[in-house]
């Protein structure tokens, strides 16, 4: 097993967690927030998927699924590459989606592109330094992949927690 395979496995775990947490959940519950200034399941799923799309496709040198596959239209948003950083609470709370299935389909589409890229990554590629002078030290491909897994896994955990908070104890066994 190599580093890129560990990352691919991590992405599969994230996708599996989202499928379990989101399948069959109503739009009302998806967009519910448990307190002022907190993120909903819908926003978290959209955001983590956008982070993965942005970070992995930039590494791959490929266009983003968001614009290229027209996902922005499904979310009624512009094609520009916004992934939710720095949104004020009102904007997060106003975020909505068509259905859980659209959130999951968006995620599956991004995951397929991420995995196609990871299959091409060699152990040597992981040490390539990125041309991002705003960071000191400059990140490597490996560091960027670590940050995607970290971000996405944390958010997947938050979605699972919210599902339990709204859906009650034992939801994951039903």
């Amino acid at each position, binding site marked *: *097993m190599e*580093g890129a395979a560990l990352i691919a496995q991590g992405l599969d775990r994230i996708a599996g*967690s989202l499928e379990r947490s989101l399948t069959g959940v109503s739009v009302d519950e998806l967009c519910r927030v448990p307190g002022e200034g907190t993120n909903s399941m819908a926003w978290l799923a959209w955001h983590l998927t956008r982070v993965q799309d942005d970070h992995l496709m930039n590494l791959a040198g490929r266009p983003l699924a968001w614009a290229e596959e027209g996902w922005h239209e499904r979310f009624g948003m512009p094609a520009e590459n916004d992934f939710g950083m720095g949104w004020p609470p009102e904007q997060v709370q106003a975020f909505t989606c068509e259905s859980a299935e659209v959130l999951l389909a968006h995620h599956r589409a991004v995951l397929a592109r991420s995995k196609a890229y990871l299959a091409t990554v060699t152990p*040597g590629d992981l040490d390539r330094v990125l041309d991002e002078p705003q960071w000191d030290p400059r990140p490597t491909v*490996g560091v960027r992949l670590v940050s995607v897994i*970290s971000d996405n896994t944390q958010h997947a955990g*938050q979605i699972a927690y919210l599902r*339990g908070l709204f859906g009650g104890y034992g939801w994951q066994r039903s």
Partner: protein
Amino acid sequence: MSTSVSDFVRQLLDRNEPYLLGALEGIDPDMLHRQPGPESNSIAWLVWHLSRVQDNHVSAMAGRDHVWITGGWVERMGLGLDPMDRGRGHTPEQIAAFRVPSVSALMDYYEAVRDATGTFLDEMDDAALERQVPAVSGDGTVPLAQRLEMTLTDGLQHTGQVAYLRGLFEGRGWLAV
């Protein structure tokens, strides 16, 4: 030299830690044990559970006893649970009644597990990933890589939950990492 899998794992755990420790910093016992819903896990339960899960995985991979047991944590934490209990299957009543003696006891246990994990990763090379180790349940075995990946997924997901709860209780902008 290319990045080894154990380097990746270490980087992921290192990156995760500021979120966990940040969420515990300055927290009072009330917030530590608060549940946002009647059946939801508190920050205390989540941090205890994620540390116990990591302790259990690392113990199986390294072939050593749990830090929980060898480090005297059963007595120090005084939870009145079976020493091998890691929280899986706890009832809503158990979750609601869960209390740790202090946030520092919880952080100290987490740090003891983290250090044992670091020692294990220092000794591990990528050839070990294929080695068969005991499965989490039952009598079977699984490749070490599988338990390593489970350690990460569980720890990171629960850290995300802990961070979310601190934000829910404390309000936006609580985290500066």
